[in-house]
């Protein structure tokens, strides 16, 4: 490698450095033969560091599959996925996936324990996280003693405890009432800004996507492909019931509706 090469490569690399996620022609096929399901087909997508990207699409279009691939929990059938810095992204699953043998505090504290955070510090962080999701008094409960929405919030706190620079969230607020959700929108936005996180956020609620995202990416159904990509220009702080958000949501909804119709549903 010559000196010139290095010079010419550097700016490019710097640009690449700012990309947190790069998906290039990612495909995922489940099973083999005639029963094979083409969940994702040549999805290409880049997410800049610090960007908040919302992923929308019809039920079963491959959103969860995509997150799972990005998290490195599954292997793509084709294409490549690059996570800047090689850090494993934190994933909040669509189901709460709480460990039944641990208390709420134990669940939230597990990622800390795995990183060998000392006990005292752990206790402080866990109670801060539980406060964030408004479950401060529930640390000693077991998952089976919680309501559906509470479980989802515990899962969110646990994912936040991961402290990864890239966060993947699969419908984190699906089981929450509008009020609690609004509050958590503020919380996640605050944390995202504080920690300068990169977030890939799956939701069915287009308003939610418009409320939170820098970008909204629309996936088509079977096979999943990126069919639209909006930049949400509404300045923050945003309110979910503001007319600007409603306008963005309306546009996305129209496109989504068209997409779903095209696939016969």
């Amino acid at each position: 490698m010559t000196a010139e090469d290095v010079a010419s490569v550097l700016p490019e690399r710097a640009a690449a450095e700012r990309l947190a996620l790069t998906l290039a022609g990612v495909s995922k096929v489940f099973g083999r033969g005639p029963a094979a399901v083409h969940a994702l087909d040549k999805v290409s997508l880049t997410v800049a560091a610090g960007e908040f990207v919302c992923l929308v699409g019809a039920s079963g279009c491959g959103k969860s599959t995509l997150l799972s691939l990005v998290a490195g929990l599954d292997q793509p059938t084709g294409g490549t996925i690059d996570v800047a810095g090689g850090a494993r992204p934190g994933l909040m699953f669509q189901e709460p996936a709480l460990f039944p043998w641990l208390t709420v505090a134990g669940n939230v504290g597990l990622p800390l324990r795995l990183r060998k955070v000392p006990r005292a510090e752990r206790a402080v962080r866990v109670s801060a996280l539980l406060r964030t999701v408004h479950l401060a008094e529930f640390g000693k409960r077991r998952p089976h003693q919680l309501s559906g929405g509470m479980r989802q919030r515990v899962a969110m706190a646990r994912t936040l405890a991961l402290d990864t620079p890239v966060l993947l969230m699969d419908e984190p607020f699906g089981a929450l009432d509008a009020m609690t959700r609004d509050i958590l929108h503020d919380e996640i936005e605050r944390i995202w800004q504080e920690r300068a996180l990169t977030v890939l956020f799956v939701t069915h609620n287009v308003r939610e996507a418009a409320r939170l995202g820098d970008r909204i990416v629309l996936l088509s159904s079977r096979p999943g492909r990126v069919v639209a990509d909006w930049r949400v220009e509404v300045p923050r702080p945003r309110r979910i019931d503001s007319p600007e958000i409603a306008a963005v949501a309306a546009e996305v909804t129209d496109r989504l509706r068209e997409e779903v119709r095209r696939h016969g549903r």
Partner: protein
Amino acid sequence: MAADTLSGLDALDLAGRESGGSTLSRVWAATWPKVLALAFVLGIWQVVYWSGWREPWVLPEPREVFADLARATATADFWHAIATTLRRGLVGFALAAGIGLVLGAAVARVAPLRAALGSAITALQTMPSIAWFPLAILLFQISENAILFVVVLGAAPSIANGVISGVDYVPPLLLRAGRNFGARGLALYRYVVAPASLPAIVSGLKQGWAFAWRSLLAGELLVIIAHRPALGVRLQGLREQNDAVGVISTMIVIFVIGVLADTVFSYADRRLRRAWGLA
């Protein structure tokens, strides 16, 4: 019709899941069936005895057996025998548990090991204790270790199989969650796989205890040591003498120890289920 009535129909379905009621009524609910069962067995036995179906030296009277048991419990030898056998059983079981857990954990998650040893574990489990006696003597001469060897070979495969079955059925979602949290190798085992398979492991340990105990009672005949009476030797000795009363009273002792062992395992199991929200 009230929903109460509807759910009344489910009362039987819920057996063992309901935990309510006062302590007294819980103790009573746990006790009367045992007492009834015991009374039932003793009753049948006594009636069969009275019927004169078999001579008393073949099928003795309950009273006689309990008298023998009472006599035996008054001797130091009896308690020494129990103590010796229990100690061997616990040591052997602990060894078997250690080996079985490690073996099971390794075989469950390392594909080549599983291909190599998976079936061998069950095959070892089916090997009768007496088949190991020559090898035990070869390796350990006439020593307590020979007994432990037989006990471990009897119980470890069973425990390993429990672990394997538990690990195989860990919900993939929890595994994925654990891996996403950065748990790898041992950490994944310690924080996810092991607790998730704990129910199957406890069940495997229980089966392992039964294997250990049976192997022990057979294996004790390998090493009959000075001044150290043991239950296995006692049972075999009484049987050699065709002492029906003694054999039955020793069986009662083994039975009671079995019940106590089960109580320990059940306790662990119940705590587990309570924590998991299953009981």
